[in-house]
C-alpha cells in the first residue's frame, strides 16, 4: 500500500513526465538519424552545448527561485567573453584577465540589481533594457571584428577533454550544478532564497532582508553568465559578437522545464538538470536529423512556449489542490 502510493507519486511527478519526454526524444532522434544521435562524437556535442546552458540555468535559477528574473544573461556573457579576448589580445596575463572578466559579470549583475531594487523596475523590463546596453558595449569592444583567443589555459577550459571524450567545460558546469544544489538545499543562504521567493513580506518580517539578498543573487547570476560567455568564447577560440546572446532563453527554458516557476519559491537543481537534458537533446537532435536552421529557431521558440505552458499549468493545478 505504502509502496503503491509512493510509486503513484513518482509517476505523477512532473520530473517523471519530463524523463519520459526525454526518452521519447532520444528514441525518435536515434531512429530518425539512423543512430547518429547516439554516436560518441555527437554525445560530446550534446555535453558541450549542455555546459553553456547549464551555467546560464544555474545563474538564472538563483534569481527565479527568489521570484526575480534576468534576461540580460546572454548579453552579459557575450560582453565578458569579448572582454576576456580583448584583455588577452592586449597582453594582460590570464590570471588577471580571467578574474576581471568574471568580475565584470558580477558588476553587471549589481547594475541590474540597482535598477530593480532602487528604481523599482520590474526585473523583466530592467534586464530587457540593460541587454541592449551591454550588447552595445560588445560592438564597441569588438569594433566589428571577432577577437581571437590563443591562451592555452583558456582554450583548455573551452575545448579540453578528459579521457578524450568528456569535455572539461561540461565537467565544470555539472560539478558547479551539484554545488549550487547543495547551496540551495543545505545552507541558510539557499533557504532564504526559497523563503523570499515564497513570500518576500513574510521573509522580511522574519528578519531576512530581501533587498540585500536580491543584490547577491543578481551578482551571482552575473558571474555565472560571464562564465558561460567565457566558456563559449574559449571553445570558439574567439570573442564573438553573437556570443551567448541567443542562449539566454535556453537557461530560462531549462529552468522552467525543470520546475523552477516564474512565481518563485519552488524548484531546484535536480529538476533543472532534467530540463537541461531535454533542452540539449532537443536542440542537438534537430541538427542531427538535418532540420533547416530557420525551422530550428521556430522549434526552440515552441519549446520555450511549451515550458511556459507547463509552468502555468502546474501553478494552476497547485492553486486548486
Amino acid at each position, binding site marked *: 500500500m505504502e509502496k503503491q502510493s509512493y510509486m503513484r507519486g513518482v509517476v505523477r511527478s512532473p520530473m517523471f513526465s519530463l524523463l519520459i519526454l526525454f526518452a521519447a526524444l532520444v528514441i525518435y532522434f536515434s531512429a530518425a538519424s539512423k543512430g547518429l544521435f547516439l554516436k560518441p562524437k555527437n554525445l560530446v556535442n550534446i555535453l558541450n552545448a549542455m555546459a553553456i546552458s547549464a551555467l546560464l540555468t544555474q545563474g538564472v535559477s538563483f534569481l527565479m527561485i527568489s521570484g526575480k528574473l534576468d534576461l540580460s544573461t546572454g548579453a552579459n556573457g557575450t560582453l565578458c567573453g569579448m572582454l576576456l579576448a580583448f584583455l588577452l589580445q592586449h597582453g594582460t596575463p590570464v590570471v588577471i584577465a580571467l578574474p576581471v572578466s568574471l568580475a565584470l559579470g558580477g558588476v553587471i549583475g549589481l547594475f541590474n540589481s540597482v535598477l530593480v531594487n532602487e528604481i523599482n523596475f520590474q526585473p523583466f523590463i530592467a534586464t530587457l533594457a540593460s541587454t541592449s546596453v551591454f550588447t552595445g558595449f560588445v560592438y564597441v569592444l569588438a569594433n566589428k571584428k571577432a577577437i581571437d583567443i590563443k591562451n592555452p589555459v583558456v582554450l583548455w577550459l573551452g575545448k579540453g577533454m578528459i579521457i578524450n571524450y568528456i569535455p572539461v567545460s561540461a565537467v565544470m558546469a555539472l560539478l558547479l550544478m551539484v554545488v549550487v544544489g547543495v547551496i540551495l538545499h*543545505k*545552507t*541558510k543562504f539557499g*533557504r*532564504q532564497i*526559497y*523563503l523570499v521567493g*515564497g*513570500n518576500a*513580506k*513574510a*521573509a*522580511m*518580517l*522574519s*528578519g*531576512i*532582508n530581501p533587498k540585500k539578498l536580491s543584490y547577491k543573487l543578481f551578482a551571482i547570476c552575473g558571474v555565472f553568465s560571464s562564465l558561460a560567455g567565457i566558456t563559449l568564447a574559449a571553445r570558439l577560440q574567439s570573442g564573438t559578437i553573437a556570443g551567448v546572446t541567443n542562449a539566454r532563453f535556453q537557461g530560462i527554458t531549462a529552468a522552467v522545464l525543470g520546475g523552477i516557476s516564474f512565481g518563485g*519559491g*519552488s524548484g531546484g537543481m535536480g529538476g533543472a538538470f532534467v530540463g537541461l537534458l531535454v533542452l540539449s537533446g532537443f536542440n542537438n537532435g534537430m541538427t542531427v536529423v538535418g532540420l533547416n536552421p530557420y525551422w530550428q529557431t521556430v522549434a526552440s521558440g515552441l519549446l520555450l512556449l511549451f515550458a511556459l505552458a507547463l509552468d502555468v499549468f502546474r501553478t494552476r493545478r*497547485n492553486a486548486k*489542490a
Partner: protein
Amino acid sequence: MEQYLEFTGIGKAYPGVQALRDISFRCDGGEVLALLGENGAGKSTLLKILSGDTRPDEGGIIIDGRPQQFSAPYDAIKAGVSVIYQERQLVPAMSVMENIFLGEQPKTSLGTIDKKALRQSTQDIIDKFGLPIRPDELAGRLSVAYQQMVEIMKAYRRNSKIIAFDEPTAPLADAEIAILFDLIRRLKEEGRIVLYVSHRLSEIFRITDKIAVLKDGRFVKYLTTSRTNEQELIQAMVGRDIGDTYANLRRNDKLGDVLLEVCNLETEYLRDVSFTLRRGEVLGLAGLVGAGRTEVARAIFGADAILGGEIRFEGEAIDFSEPKDAIEAGIALCPEDRKDQGLVLWRSIRENITMPVLGRIRKGLFLDRAAEEHLAEEAIAKYAIRTPSINKIVRELSGGNQQKVILGRWTNSKMTTKLLILDEPTKGIDVGTKAEVYQMICDFAGEGFGVIFISSELTEVINVSDRIIVMRNGRVTGDVTRREATEESVLALAMTD
C-alpha cells in the same frame, strides 16, 4: 410568487476529503440565514457551489421552485445569485460607478458608454443606501469597508435575489459593521434572501433570523435565531460544551519590571502615543480599523520611521532600521494578515517555524537538519498543531493551525523573544481554536513575555487583556484595566472625540 432558495442533498468530494455530504436546507425570501460552522465544516465549499464556481457531485440548488445548473459563475449571476467573498472582487483602477455597472454600462445611441446616465444611476443607488461615496471615486482608493459596500451595491444593481456574504465583518471595525448591518436589513426588507457566513456569534444574534449549522461537511442543525443561545450554537458547532471561555482562562498575575515604554511617539500615522508594558502583562490595543494600532506595532518593529518621542525597550531607546534588528533584540511580530505577511504558504511547517533562527541552527556551513526538525516537533507538541508531518505544506493547514505555526515560530526555543506583538491573531479562526489562542496568550504572559494583543473584536480584547489601550485617529484616547472596561465604555473611547 414565493421566493426561496433550497439546497437538496448536496455532496462534494475533493481528493482525500468528503467536503460536503447530503446537505439539504431551505432559506426564504426576506430572511437572513446564518451559515455556521468551524473552519473546514464546508461553508466555503457550499458558497462556491452556490456561486457556480464549483459543481456538486450530487444534489442541486433550487431557486423559486426551478432546479438550477450552474456551470460557471456567470450562470449563477444570471439566476440572481451574488456572492460577496472575503477577498474583494472590485477592479481597483476603475471608478465606483464602473465597478457597479461592470459589463452592463448604459450606452449612448453611438454605442459609447453613457457616463451621465451611469453617474446618475449610481448616485441613485448610493442615495438609496445613504452612503458617503462618490460615483467617480476609484474603487481602489476606498477603505475596505466601503469597497464592500460597493460590492453590495453591485449585487443590488444586478437585482440579485440571493446575496451571500462570506465573513463580511472580518476586516471591519464595529462602527463599519453597524453600517453593513443596516444595508443587510434593507436587503431583507425588500424580500431578498441573504446568506450570512461568520464566526462571530454575537453578530449572528444581531442580524440573522435562521441558522444552519454545518459540521465536518454534514448538516447538523437548523435553528431559529430568536429561540436559541450561544451555548446551544457552540455545542452544535463543536459537538462539545466549551463553557465560558473567558472565565476559564488561566491568567498570569505575576507582573515583572517595565519591559517597554513608549513616550510621546510620533510617526507618519501616530500622534503623541504613550504607554508602558510590563513583563508578564497582556496589553490590549483596541480601536477601529485605521486607529493606528498596527502602526504602533510597526514603529516598535522598525518598519515605520520614528519622527518624534521615543521607544524604550528594557530601558534602552530603540529605533530599528529593519525587522532583523528588532528580532535580534527580542521583539516578535505576528502580523495581521497571516497569508500575506506571516506565512510562506508553499513551504513546510518546519521551514516556516525556523525562519527567524536559521543563523542559530547551523552546523558548519550547512543548516542543522536535526536541530531544525527538533524545533518543529517542539512547536507541534507545544501548540497541538494538527498535522501528520512537520513537512506538510503550511497552505494545507486550517487557519487555526496556521496561526499556531506562526506562534511556534516566534516562541521556539532558539528565539530570545521578550516582547510578542500579536496583530489580530484570531482573525478567521473558529470558536474552539480561538479559546486555545486566548489561553496561549495568557501562557505567554505566564512565561514572562510582554504581550501586545491587537484586536478589532471588542469582546476578546477587553476580556483577554490585563490592560487596554484605546486608540482613535493615531492617538491614545484611553488606558483602562480589564476590571474597568466594558464594551460600551471602550467603544465610546474608540469612537467619540
